[in-house]
């Protein structure tokens, strides 16, 4: 028997930094990832897909958001989808699970809302395979949500597969956080052949026979692990150490980039680097760029043209933090305002303010850049 392990779909997630167009694309791709997972499972002969919590991003999604993932899964009637609640969509009255319980879901979609073992079938050797779900009925459950797995009775010789959502104790978890903490040796203590976990968005092995699949479509920068975008194909369930093989299903790649800019060459290099993140499909790349350094008016214009306008248009999204980028004003720049006269005087006044320590320092620098730009457009002084 083969299983596909995934989690943290977080359907309906909002991306506040993104513009409306990008937001729509990002949200659509999270849904399309379900199709890719289904196709992978079908291709790999995995009849069961385990979704380890956080199917939805919120406890009160809209009706369309509520139904969309179900409708995607409905397209695979030959697959069994096993879903449990996560901390984003805990099983609460009126929550998405409650609403689906009332409205009903296709038979191939199994909502595990009680901590009771459920049979998945048998492996090739005929050993029964049972699923042991942990259920979060609140956003933050005190204690170990998987504790009940120890007492869950299964037939003798059964292969026990755990499915849970939370942080593994001692595995990057906050020691002060006392909720949704899963024992690091849960698989061993509960006799699990495999423990499929959700919560971490980057694919990670959290212990013996214990894996975080990560989110199938990356939803942020710095997500840890592989950064997300993968699912795990689990096989060899009867062996002491089942195989968990990552398969990429994500559409987008999220990158954090840093650059120090002082001149045109570095700007050009940065543009090259950004475009090189995915030369075939830069529109699948989102970048959070942090720049620092100092640029003169010409370089500012170059930065605008090559990075903001150029690379920014090629990438799916380019988020720039330029708080560390200061305007550099050279004598030659001020010379463009004339050797004397009102413009030169104004430029020097602003330059002095920008070089000072006043609260207006940053505003003055911007005003100086603006002055130089306007003067240049107006024509050479004199």
């Amino acid at each position, binding site marked *: 028997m083969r299983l596909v392990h995934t989690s943290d779909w977080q359907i*309906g997630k*909002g991306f*506040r930094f993104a513009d409306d167009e990008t*937001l729509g694309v990002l949200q659509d791709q999270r849904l399309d990832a379900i199709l890719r997972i289904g196709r992978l499972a079908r291709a790999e002969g995995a009849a069961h897909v385990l979704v380890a919590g956080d199917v939805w*991003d*919120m*406890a*009160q*999604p*809209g*009706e*369309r*958001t*509520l139904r969309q993932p179900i409708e995607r899964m409905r397209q695979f009637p030959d697959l069994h989808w096993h879903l449990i609640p996560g901390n984003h969509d805990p099983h*609460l*009255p*009126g929550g998405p699970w409650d*609403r689906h319980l009332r409205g009903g879901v296709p038979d191939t979609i199994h909502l595990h809302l009680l901590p009771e073992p459920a049979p998945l079938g048998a492996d090739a050797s005929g050993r029964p395979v049972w699923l042991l779900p942990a259920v979060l009925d609140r956003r933050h459950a005190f204690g170990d949500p998987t504790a009940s797995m120890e007492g869950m009775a299964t037939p003798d010789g059964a292969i026990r597969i755990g499915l849970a959502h939370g942080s593994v104790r001692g595995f990057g978890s906050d020691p002060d956080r006392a909720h949704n903490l899963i024992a690091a040796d849960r698989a061993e203590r509960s006799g699990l052949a495999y423990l499929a976990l959700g919560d971490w968005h980057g694919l990670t092995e959290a212990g013996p026979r214990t894996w975080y699949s990560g989110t199938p479509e990356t939803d942020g920068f710095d997500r840890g692990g592989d950064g997300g975008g993968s699912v795990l194909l689990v096989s060899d369930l009867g062996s002491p150490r089942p195989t968990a093989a990552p398969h990429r299903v994500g559409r987008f790649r999220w990158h954090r980039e840093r650059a120090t800019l002082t001149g045109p060459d570095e700007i050009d290099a940065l543009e090259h680097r950004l475009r090189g993140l995915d030369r075939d499909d830069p529109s699948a790349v989102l970048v959070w760029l942090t720049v620092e350094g100092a640029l003169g008016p010409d370089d500012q214009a170059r930065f605008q043209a090559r990075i903001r306008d150029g690379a920014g248009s090629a990438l799916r999204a380019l988020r720039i933090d330029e708080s560390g980028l200061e305007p550099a004003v050279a004598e030659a720049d001020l010379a463009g*305002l*004339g*050797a*004397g*006269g*009102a*413009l*030169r*005087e*104004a430029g020097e*006044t*602003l330059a002095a*303010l920008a070089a000072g320590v006043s609260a*207006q320092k940053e*505003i*003055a620098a*911007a*005003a100086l850049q*603006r*002055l130089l730009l*306007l*003067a240049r457009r*107006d*024509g050479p*002084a*004199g």
Partner: protein
Amino acid sequence: MRLRTLRLDQFRKFDRPMRLDGLRDGVNVLCAPNEFGKSTLLAALRAVLFEKHASKTDAIRGYQPRLGNTAPTLSLSFEQDGVLHSLEKRFLLRPSARLVSGGVAFEGDAAEERLATLLGVASASRGARDAARQAATIWGALLVDQGESFGQATLGEQARTTLSECLESELGAASGGAATGRLLKTVQAQLGERLDGRGNPKDRYKAALQERESAEQEIASLQERRRLLQDDLAALVEARRALARDADPALDRQARAALDEARRHREALLGQRDRHGRATAAVGLAEAECAAIDAERARRAARSAALESNARLLDMLTGREADARLQEGAAVSALERGRAAWEASMQAVEAARLALVEAQARSDAQDRLARHAALRDRLADAETQATEIDALSARLAALRPDQAGILALRQAALADRGDRAALLAQATRVTVALSVPSTLSLDGAAPVAVPPGPALLELTGPATLRIDGIGEIAVAPASGDRERLLDAARDSARRLRTLLDAAGCADLDAAERANAERGQLALSLEQARRALAAAAGKDGISALRAQEEALRPDRQEDVAADPAALREALDRARHDLDAAQRAETAARASLAAPERARDAARMLLAQAELERRTQEADRTRLAAERAQAEATESDDALLARRQAADEALSARRAALLALIEAAPEGTVALADARIARLEQADANRQASLSGLRETIVRLEGRIAREEGIGLDEQIEAQARRRDNAARAVADETREVAVLTLLRDTLLAADRSARARTLAPLVGRIGPYLQALFPGASVALDQDFQITGLSRNGVEGEGFGLLSHGTREQIAILARLAFADMLLASGRPAFLVLDDALAFADAARLERMFDIIADAGSRMQILVLTCREELAAALGGHRVRLEPEAA
């Protein structure tokens, strides 16, 4: 720029074509009287140069002649840079513009653009391209309307920029003022896109602020709805839990079993109560039977005892009755003796009373005699006074005059005296002093002797004074009123006499005396009446006479007895009667004791008889009852029945006791209460279940409505909207801060630079100023306004403090200097002055003419004036505005 010809048609007052021809370089003078149209000419020049032909503003409509809807049409030919330009504009009706420059024709907007370029205002300010706003350009300083020449030209930003550009050209672009002006304009425009006139956000900036606020409000609203939803969800969980608890079928079964048990218990209690009642009733019946038999036996025993007692009592009562009869006989005898004594005493009392009556009669006769004597004396006195009153009354009635008569007499005498005095006052007074006697005959009266010596004769009528031995002197008084007075005196004397005669009196004194006597008589009469009243009393003399008649004694009574003997006999009779009465009282009192003894004896006898008879009746009744009872049931039979009843009672009591010991616990009331309680509890539970189900349905409905909305998703969407708006606000805020700082910095730098670059302009004004005010210099501010005038190095006079004439002259010099600077920088310029220099004195006027003539060597100047002498002195080339030749 040199103007050559100007043609006007249908323009304001000119409703037919007019033409200004022959304009030359240098100074041109158009002299014409007031109302000729000089200011209209200047307006036409402005219109053709600066108004767009397609404009239809109120100003343009104001160009039409007062009568007729026609098209104002203007043509201007001018030279610039050696090229002749012909411009024609038609307004309002089929508006058009045509400019032919060096053989190249421009039509419509192209003509306007070309013209603007020639005027140097195209790139600077399209907004200034109309006559109303051309004042903002430097042309506002060069085309000077009537009355405008008195003050300095008001320079708009555009004009200042133009001047700055000229100064820069002179300074070799050192000031940067022109570029600064353009940048400032750009910055102002960008700021103006974000802030309104009061510095408040507008358009995109304002919209971002409103968007942020709206999103925040929406988030708050959604969060509140989510909170309510969570409350509903919690309430739903609780309601479902309560329903699951209370709707347990086991609870129903338990409730039904408890209720059935309670009802069975109540039935058992009811059966027990019935049986107990019946057993109790049986015991009661047996007890009653025993009691009835006991009562009958008691009655029989009591009856036997009563018969025995009755016999003993009868014997005693018979003896007591005989004793009573004896006592009654003795008491009656004693009473009869007492009554005989009492009757004797009553006879003695009657005899004493008769004796007293006789004695009292004799004493009364003696008292009447004494009173009659006193009355008789009073009557005699009263009769005397009555006689006196009658005499006095007769005298008073006969006396004259009476009271009315004396009053009439007094008034008549007074009138007579008055009339006579009046007559005498009119008398002729004759004073004589005769040495011999004489007589005087007055008015025919008897002569009166007049003794010798001085005398006064008062003559009221004709008189004759006869002097013995000498003769007579006749005197006739001459009073006019004398006759009337004399008649009055005679009338009053006659009336007095008549009254006196009626009263029987010789004169008034006699009448007064008779009146005094009358008063005396009245007084005496009053005294006599008082004396009569005192004697006769209040009832009068007649009553007195009757009293006396009544008391007058009979002849038998006239014999008077001895009063002392009479009183002694009377006292003795009274004493005897008193003694007899006391004896009668004592006798009567002595009867009471025998009467009481007799009554007591009789009462005892009657009582003894009654008691005896009663006992005899009881004996008869008791004997009859005993006989009847014995006949009904013998005493032995009754005793046997009593024993049987006692045995039955014991058996029933034992049965009742056994029933009580076997009774179930509690009472029917308690059982009823338990049943009611259980039924109520069940009803309450059912009601609670119903309420819970309703609550759940209601909550589920409300939750379902809110669920579908997807509150979390909406909140996320609104948060995103808020964040976007906040970023836009931050961007706009930063942009405003940048632009504001840039604007302020540019303004400060521009002012500073202008202050440094004013020197060329001051230099332009200098030569003109020296010609007019030797040794003087002016100070300019950064806006090219003259602020003050210094003479011979002495600081001081502010421009506003100078005289009107001096201010106008200096302002014209400044305009000349502006035109000089424009020309020097290759820009078009000419100057038009309408009715300027009105306040200049002759010397200043001459020097101003010299200055204008000098400037005319560098620029074209058109002077419009209504003063011929001024035009003549100014010289220059005279031009005329004339109707166009047909």
